[in-house]
């Protein structure tokens, strides 16, 4: 795909067995990841999970203790930073304060001694692409946060990097601007077709922007997948908990049949989960049943229709688009249920009322119990 | 790579800073041919002389006493100014900082000259005193301890003020406001809030000024008299008298004292911004 910035610059990125230790802390441990050309991948996790360290290892700013960084099929471990041909946008944009916008943007090309006429032309195009034409003579301090961010982007794109690295670049912006920039960033990435690795702790942002998300925790990747995969089929408790809101029922496997697995929760309730994965779940194994609040249905007690857990409504929170019900099961566990505000009256159940909670088969997940 | 970059400076300092002091050390351990017809080698005789003779001990004592006096004066006189400087709003502050720093960039001989014109027998102060009838004859304000203390306090006051101001700036004004609301008058606020929280700065300032005072030489030479003898001046005199070895021993004494204070200062004041 040809762009105003020149030839296509997609490259795939592969990390094999990357590890990095700082003193007593293992920042990154045995990390494997493959990113296809042109993909937008987010490294998502809480602070301290190793996502920024991983990004800096890819950039060459940090040397890994073990493992290989392979970009475009070439092993980059011994390649110095300035020869890797990547682009980096940091949270504070790192615009050179003593240079004008134009000088900032053309920095990479000037360092490579490109022809001046060429530089001027391409710089003009780049500025147009990020809608900053005419601001070439300004200094960074004269620009707004959003404008500075776009200058940082243009500066990266002009060197036609194989991969674009972004370290929480939208963190300093306020909510509205942030959302606008998310859209712009994504469309720019699509347009140029560049491979992008995006570090963030904001799961909503990751879900919005990414083709794939790698959820990280304590130096390891817990799960990689498309946003809906991560959300609907989390593989660990951490992932289920970090993305969105989730209910957890801890218990022990007490039976297994063709349809699924029966669990006795710690509170004593009996729950059936459709176990779609062929997993060796012996009786007595401790597991966690995870179900999202929007998947729960509430009905009045008494009468029919199948299995369910008795509960009492402890609190009702009205948030406009939905109503959140905070429930306590008869067996003591707590659950949250969301009900879409699509019928009148909005609030169907009062605090203190008894309900029966259930969910459709297949909407609950079985997760291994996490140690610690 | 860092080693390479540091090398020029390190080599330069080693040659022109460490080595010279090494030479002093060596010189201090020998006796001059005149005193030493027997040709004795390394000896501590110079040090023995320095510590053994009451005269030299007195000089040492005077040096320390001067240090204490000037430091105390600088502290008491400078503290209020430091507080004012730390609490003042920006526009005026710039000018005030300028006023505090400018004496420091003017050569010490010029400042001494100014004092000599002021404090001399026919100087400005005496002229004014006589004219106002506050004295019958000119007061001896120079060539004695008085002149020395005035001149040194003048030289060292900015150092004390800047050190203290820097620390007081770090004490949030809200603490004083809270104390005031709770009923503390200015003295109580000073005694219970500002002073305790500024002790680190006081320690640093005191160490700095003391160290600079005992190393002072020019002001005392110019404004002092025959009885205002301190260690640096003694060293100078001994050089003039060509008693190089003894001067070297005295120099080593001063060096040890200064290094001890330097060490104390480095521990006391963690420099803001650097390291």
């Amino acid at each position: 795909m040809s762009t105003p910035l020149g030839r296509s610059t997609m490259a795939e990125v592969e990390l094999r067995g990357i590890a990095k230790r700082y003193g007593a802390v293992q920042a990154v441990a045995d990390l494997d990841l493959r990113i296809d050309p042109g993909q937008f991948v987010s490294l998502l996790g809480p602070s301290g999970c190793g996502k920024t360290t991983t990004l800096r290892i890819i950039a060459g700013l940090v040397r890994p203790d073990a493992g290989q960084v392979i970009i475009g099929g070439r092993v980059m471990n011994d390649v110095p930073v300035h020869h890797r041909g990547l682009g980096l946008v940091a949270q504070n944009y790192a615009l050179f304060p003593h240079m004008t916008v134009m000088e900032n943007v053309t920095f990479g090309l000037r360092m490579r001694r490109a022809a001046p006429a060429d530089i001027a032309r391409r710089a003009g195009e780049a500025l147009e692409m990020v809608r900053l034409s005419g601001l070439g003579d300004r200094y960074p301090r004269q620009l707004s946060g959003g404008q500075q961010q776009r200058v940082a982007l243009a500066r990266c794109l002009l060197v036609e990097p194989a991969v674009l690295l972004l370290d929480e670049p939208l963190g300093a912006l306020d909510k509205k601007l942030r959302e606008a920039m998310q859209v712009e960033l994504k469309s720019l990435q699509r347009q140029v077709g560049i491979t992008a690795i995006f570090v963030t702790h904001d799961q909503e942002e990751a879900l919005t922007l990414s083709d794939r998300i790698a959820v990280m925790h304590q130096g390891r990747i817990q799960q990689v997948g498309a946003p809906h995969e991560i959300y609907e089929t989390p593989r660990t408790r951490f992932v289920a908990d970090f993305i969105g809101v989730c209910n957890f029922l801890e218990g022990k496997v007490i039976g297994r049949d063709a349809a699924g697995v029966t669990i006795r929760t710690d509170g004593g309730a009996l729950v059936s989960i459709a176990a779609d994965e062929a997993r060796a779940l012996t009786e007595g194994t401790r597991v966690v049943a995870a179900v999202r609040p929007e998947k729960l249905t509430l009905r009045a007690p008494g009468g029919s229709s199948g299995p369910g857990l008795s509960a009492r409504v402890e609190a009702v929170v009205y948030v406009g688009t939905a109503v959140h019900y905070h429930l306590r099961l008869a067996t003591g566990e707590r659950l949250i249920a969301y009900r879409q505000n699509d019928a009148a009256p909005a609030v169907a159940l009062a605090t203190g009322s008894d309900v029966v909670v259930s969910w459709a088969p297949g909407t609950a997940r079985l997760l291994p119990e996490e140690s610690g | 790579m860092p080693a390479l970059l540091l090398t020029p400076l390190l080599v330069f300092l080693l040659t022109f800073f460490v080595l010279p002091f090494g030479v002093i050390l060596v010189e201090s351990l020998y006796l001059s041919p005149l005193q030493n017809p027997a040709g004795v080698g390394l000896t501590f005789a110079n040090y023995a002389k320095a510590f053994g003779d009451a005269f030299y001990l007195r000089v040492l004592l005077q040096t320390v006493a001067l240090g204490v006096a000037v430091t105390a004066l600088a502290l008491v006189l400078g503290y209020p100014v430091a507080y004012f400087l730390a609490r003042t709003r920006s526009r005026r502050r710039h000018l005030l900082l300028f006023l505090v720093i400018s004496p420091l960039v003017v050569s010490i001989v010029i400042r001494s000259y100014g004092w000599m014109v002021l404090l001399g027998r026919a100087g400005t102060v005496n002229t004014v005193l006589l004219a106002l009838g506050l004295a019958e004859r000119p007061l001896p304000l120079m060539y004695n301890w008085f002149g020395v203390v005035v001149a040194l306090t003048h030289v060292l006051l900015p150092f004390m003020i800047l050190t203290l101001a820097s620390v007081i700036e770090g004490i949030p004004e809200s603490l004083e406001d809270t104390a005031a609301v709770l009923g503390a008058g200015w003295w109580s606020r000073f005694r219970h809030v500002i002073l305790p929280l500024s002790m680190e700065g006081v320690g640093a300032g005191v160490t700095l000024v003391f160290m600079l005072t005992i190393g002072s030489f020019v002001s005392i030479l110019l404004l002092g008299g025959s009885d205002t003898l301190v260690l640096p001046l003694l060293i100078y005199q001994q050089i003039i008298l060509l008693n190089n070895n003894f001067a070297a021993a005295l120099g080593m004494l001063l060096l040890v004292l200064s290094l001890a204070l330097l060490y104390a200062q480095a521990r006391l004041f963690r420099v803001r911004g650097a390291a």
Partner: protein
Amino acid sequence: MILRLYCAAVFAFLSLPIVVAVGVAFGSDKIARFPPTALSLRWFGVALSNPTFITALGNSVVLATLTTLLTVVIGLPAATALVRRRLPGQSLLETFLLSPLSLPGVLFGVAMLFFLGASGFGLTGWGILAAHVVIAVPYVLRTTLAVYRGLDRGLEETAGVLGASPWQTFWHVTLPLLRPGLVAGGLFAFLTSFDNVPVSIFLTTARTTTLPVTIMSYLVNQDFDPIVGAISAVQVALVLGLLVLLDRIYGIGQITSLSGQ
């Protein structure tokens, strides 16, 4: 408020001797008097026609300029090395490198005197230059370190990622941003050399005399001629001018975090 009056008094005290020294130069009297009874510029004329004074002024300016250049050339790489990576014994090393600032000048002057004699270098202008560089280089180190440590590390990193080699990064990004610190340090170095007495007094000869040492010799001989005032006035004008320049480039506010040591 009392505090204001008191501070005004202290500020007046701090400026007093300098005002007096300069004021004497504008007097028409034969002896130094402040305030002068009548104003005149004749002492400047006397000073300017005094060969010792002219030589001393020239020597001082040349010496201070060379000192400044040398301190920057030696000090900048050293500051770079200290900032980049945490070296073993770093704080001890830094204390050592900054120590000439705190040790008594008279000590160092004597040390250099012995050293130049013993080593055969002799009392030359180069010897004085070396001594001045030793006492001035800590200033350059200090200001450069302060500015360098305040820089956003991300700027150098980003330059590297964008393809600038370490040398290109230093030249195009780091150095321009360090410039205020270097200039400030250089100005301090100039002032230190230009003003210095305790070290210079041991090392200068009639041929290599400096301006402050010349003034010193007048005073030691109890000669308070207003010519000294005129010489002083020239010096004061120069150094205050440089201080204003220093303020413009670096900002005096920054200096407090430096002079407080």
